[in-house]
C-alpha cells in the first residue's frame, strides 16, 4: 500500500500544472501570478509540515531534513524566478504562459529527483527536468542561437541520459535491484555502472570535463532561461549527486572516489582557465559556475566533518548571488538589443548606483573576499575538506579562487574604472530591483548577523 501522504509536494505541483494549463488559456497574466501564490503556499506548507509528510516512511531523519530543506529552497527559488520572468520575456515577445509550465515541470522533475530512492524514479525525474530545460533553452524560436542552444543541449543531454540508463541497467544486472539505499556487495560491473551514472550526473551539474555544453547553452538561451539553468535544476541534480555519494558510500569505493576527486580538481581548474579569456558575460558566468561546482564537489566529498550544513550553506549563498547577478543583467539592455559583452558594462557606476554596487558585492562575494558571505561559504567548505584530509584539493581550490579573482575584478574594473562607451538602457523593473538589492543586502549583512542563515541550515540537520 503506497502512502500518498509523502507525495503531497509533488501532487501539489502537479495540480498547479493542471490549473495553470486550464487557466492560461483564458488569462495568462493571472495564471502566472497564481503560480507565485501556489509556491508561497507550498513553501509555507513545507516549512511547517515538511517533516510530517515523511514521518510514516522508513527514511532516516537526516535524509528527511535533506528532502525538506532542498524542496523549500527550490520553491522559494521558484517564487523569485516567477516574479522575475515577466519583464524579460515581454521584452523579447516571448511572454506566454507555456514558459511557466515548463518551469513547473522542471521543478516537479527536481522534486522527484531529490526524493527518489530508486534509480528508475531518479531517471524519470531527471528526464522530466531535462526535457523542460531543452524547451526553455529553445524558447526564443525566432532566434537562431536560441535554437542552436536548445538542440545542442538536447543532443548532448540525450547522450548523457543514455549513459545514465546504461549505467542503471548494469547495476540492475549485477545486483538485481534499482534501490539506491540497499546496494552493497559491489562487483566490477556495478562499479562501471555507477561510474556511468556519476558521469551523467556530472554532465547535469556541468562539472568538467563534462561541461562542454555549458558555455554555448548559457550564451545562446534567453537570459532568463540561463538564470534557471544556473540555479534550480543544477541545485537539484547536485543534491541527488550528494545523496548517491552518501547512500552508496562512494568514499569507500576506491575507483569511484578517484573519479570524484579528479572531476573536482579538473572543474576547479577548467572553470578558471576557461573564464579568463571570455568576453561575453554569460560565457564567463558559465565557466565561473564550473569553478564553483568544483567547490561544491569538494563539499560533497567532505560531508563527514560537518554533515550537509557546509554544502547547503555554499549552495544557498551561491543561489542568492546568482539570482542577484542575473537580476541585474536582466535589467540592462543596449539600444540595439540584449546586452551581452562584459565591455558593455563600462561606466555602469555612473548610470546606476544600486546596480553597480550590488554587482560589486556579488562579484567580490563570488571571488571569496571577506566580509561578504561568499567568503564564509568557501571558508566552511575548506574547513570541512581540510578536516577530512583533502589538503591537495584545498590548495588547488584556493589557488583557483585567486585566479578567479582576476576575472571578477575585470568585471568590477569595467563597471567602476572605465568611462561608458555604449548607452545602457535601464529597464527599471521594480521587482528585479527589489531582488538584486535584497540579495546584495543578504550577502553583505551576513557578516554582521550570521545567525538566521546558519540556524536555518543547522536546525534542519539536527
Amino acid at each position, binding site marked *: 500500500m503506497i502512502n500518498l501522504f509523502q507525495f503531497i509536494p509533488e501532487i501539489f505541483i502537479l495540480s498547479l500544472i493542471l490549473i495553470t494549463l486550464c487557466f492560461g488559456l483564458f488569462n495568462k497574466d493571472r495564471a502566472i501570478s497564481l503560480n507565485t501564490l501556489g509556491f508561497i503556499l507550498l513553501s509555507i506548507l513545507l516549512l511547517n509540515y515538511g517533516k510530517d509528510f515523511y514521518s510514516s516512511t522508513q527514511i532516516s531523519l537526516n535524509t528527511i531534513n535533506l528532502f525538506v530543506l532542498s524542496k523549500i529552497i527550490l520553491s522559494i527559488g521558484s517564487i523569485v524566478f516567477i516574479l522575475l520572468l515577466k519583464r524579460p520575456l515581454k521584452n523579447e515577445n516571448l511572454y506566454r504562459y507555456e514558459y511557466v509550465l515548463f518551469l513547473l515541470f522542471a521543478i516537479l522533475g527536481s522534486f522527484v529527483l531529490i526524493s527518489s530512492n530508486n534509480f528508475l524514479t531518479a531517471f524519470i525525474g531527471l528526464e522530466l527536468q531535462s526535457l523542460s530545460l531543452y524547451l526553455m533553452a529553445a524558447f526564443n524560436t525566432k532566434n537562431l542561437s536560441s535554437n542552436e542552444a536548445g538542440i545542442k543541449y538536447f543532443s548532448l543531454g540525450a547522450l548523457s541520459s543514455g549513459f545514465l540508463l546504461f549505467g542503471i541497467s548494469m547495476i540492475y544486472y549485477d545486483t538485481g535491484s534499482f534501490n539506491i539505499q540497499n546496494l552493497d556487495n559491489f562487483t566490477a560491473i556495478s562499479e562501471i555502472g555507477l561510474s556511468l551514472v556519476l558521469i551523467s550526473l556530472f554532465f547535469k551539474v556541468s562539472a568538467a570535463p563534462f561541461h562542454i555544453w555549458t558555455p554555448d547553452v548559457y550564451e545562446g538561451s534567453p537570459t532568463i532561461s540561463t538564470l534557471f539553468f544556473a540555479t534550480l535544476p543544477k541545485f537539484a541534480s547536485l543534491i541527488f549527486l550528494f545523496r548517491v555519494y552518501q547512500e552508496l558510500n562512494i568514499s569507500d569505493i576506491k575507483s569511484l572516489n578517484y573519479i570524484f576527486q579528479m572531476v573536482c580538481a579538473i572543474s576547479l581548474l577548467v572553470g578558471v582557465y576557461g573564464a579568463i579569456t571570455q568576453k561575453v558575460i554569460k560565457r564567463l558566468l558559465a565557466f565561473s559556475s564550473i569553478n564553483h561546482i568544483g567547490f561544491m564537489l569538494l563539499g560533497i566529498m567532505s560531508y563527514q566533518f*560537518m554533515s550537509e*550544513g557546509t554544502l547547503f550553506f555554499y549552495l544557498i549563498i551561491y543561489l542568492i548571488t546568482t539570482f542577484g547577478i542575473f537580476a541585474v543583467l536582466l535589467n540592462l539592455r543596449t539600444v540595439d538589443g540584449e546586452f551581452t559583452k562584459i565591455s558593455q558594462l563600462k561606466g555602469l557606476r555612473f548610470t546606476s548606483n544600486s546596480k553597480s554596487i550590488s554587482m560589486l558585492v556579488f562579484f*567580490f562575494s563570488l571571488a571569496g*573576499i*571577506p*566580509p561578504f558571505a561568499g*567568503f564564509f561559504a568557501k*571558508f566552511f567548505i*575548506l*574547513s570541512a575538506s*581540510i*578536516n577530512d584530509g583533502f589538503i591537495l584539493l*584545498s*590548495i588547488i581550490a*584556493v*589557488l583557483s*579562487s*585567486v585566479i578567479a*579573482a*582576476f576575472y571578477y*575584478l575585470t568585471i568590477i*574594473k569595467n563597471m*567602476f*574604472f572605465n568611462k561608458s562607451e555604449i548607452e545602457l538602457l535601464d529597464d527599471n523593473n521594480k521587482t528585479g530591483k527589489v531582488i538584486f538589492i535584497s540579495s546584495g543586502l543578504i550577502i553583505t549583512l551576513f*557578516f554582521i548577523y*550570521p545567525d538566521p542563515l*546558519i540556524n536555518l541550515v*543547522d536546525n534542519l540537520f539536527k
Partner: protein
Amino acid sequence: MSFPILSLLILTPIIGALTLSLSSSTQLKNKTIFLSGLWITTGEFLLSLLLPFFYDKSKNGYQFIEFHTWFDKFDINYYVGVDGVSIPLILLTTFLVPICLLCSINSIQNRAKEFVIYFLLLESFIIGVFVSIDIVIFYVFFEAVLIPMFLIIGIWGGENRLYATFKFFLYTLAGSVLMLLAIIYIISKVKSGNIELISDFTFDQQIELVLFLCFFASFAVKVPMFPFHTWLPDAHVQAPTSGSVILAGVLLKLGAYGFIRLSLPFFEYASLYFQPMIFALSCVAIVYTSIVALRQLDMKKMIAYSSVAHMGFVTIGIFTLTQDGINGAYFQMISHGIVSAALFLIVGVVYERHHTRMISDYSGVTNVMPKYSFFFMVFMLSSVGLPGTSGFVGEFLVIMSTISVSVYLTFFTAIGVILGASYMLLLYKNINFGDLKSDIKQLADLTNIEIFYFSCLAFLTMLLGIYPKLLFEMINKSISLSII
C-alpha cells in the same frame, strides 16, 4: 570596562560611510563631503585617544575586551581587545586618515563622495585588524582592506593604475589564501580561533614549519619583503597621494603586525628555524632596494623603494627575537608610518602644483618654496635617522640588537643606513638646491592647511625622537610577553 569602545571605533567610520552614501550626491558640494568626512575621522581620532589614557600599562594581556559569539559551531567569535602592541598602531591609523582626507580636498575633484566613503571603510577595516584577537576575524578584516584600496588606486590613480591595482590585489590575495588554509588547519587542531589559546598550543615541528611558511607568504607580501616587493613601487606610483600615504603609513604595517602578533607566539620553533632565511632576505632588501632607490628618476618610486628598505629593518628587528630588537622594530614601524606618510605628502604637494614626479623636472625649489623645503628637510633627516628624530631610535635599537646575533648582519644593516642617507640627501639636493628652473618660478608655497598637517607630523617625529619612552612604556610589557 563595559563601554564598548573598540566596537565603536570599528563602527563609527562604517556608520559615517552609510550616512554619506544615503545622502543624495547632487546636492552636496565636494567641500561639504570632505568636511563631513573630516568631522567623522577627527571624532574617531579623539575617540581612539581614550585608549592610551584608560589602558592599564601594569597589567598583562588584553584589555577593553568584548566578546560575542559569532559562529557557535566552529567556536569562532567576535572577540576584540587591545594590548600595548596594537594601541600605537590604532592611533597611527586614526591620525593619518584625517590627514589623507585633508590633503585630497583639492586634488580629488570627481566622485568625492565615493572617495570619502572608501576611506572611511578602509579605516574601520584597518582598525578591525588591529583589535581582533580571534584569528578568523583578523583574517576577515585583513582581507577586507583590499577592497577599498583596490578601488582607491583604480579610480583615482595615475595613467597606469589598472595594472598597478590588479597587481596589488592579486599579489596580496595569493599570499593570503595560503594563510587562510593554515588558519583553517590551526582551528581544526586547536578547536578555537582564540589567539591566546593558539599561542599555548604546540604543533608538530614539521607541520609548524609549513604553517609558518603559509603565514609568512601572506605577511611577507604585505610588508613587503624582498622577492615579493615588486607590487609596491607600482602601487605607490599609481596611487593618489592619499592612497600612498595610507599604504605606506599603515597597510605595510599590517604585515609586520601580523609577524609580531601571530607568527612569533604561534610558531616559536619555526621562527627560530627560519631566522637565517628572514635575515638573508631582509639584508638583500636593505642593500638591494637602497641601491635601486639611488637610481630612480621618479620621486614616488624612490620613496617606495626606501620603504622596502626600511621595512627590512623592521623584519630583522622582529626576528632577532630579543626584546630590544622587537622594540626597535616596532619603533621603526611607527616612525616609518609617520615619516614615509609625510614624504609621500611632500611629493604630493609639488605634484599637485607642477604635475610631474620626475626628479629632473625640479631644481632650486627652495628659492620659491622655503617653508616646503624646511618640512622636507625635517622628514628627510628623520628618514635618514638623524639623532633627535624618530628614525634614529628604531634603527639604532635594531642595529644594536643584531650584534648579539651576528656581526655580518650588523654590517649590512649599517650599510643600509649609509645608503639610505645617500639617496635621501641626493633626492633633497636635486629638488631643493641648484638653479631655479624657469617653469618652477610660479609654484606657490605651502598653504595653511598643508602647514598644519606637516607641523603635526613633524611634531610627532621630534617628540618620538626626543622622548621615545612615550612609546616604549606602552609596548614593553606586551612585547616581552610575545617573545617568551
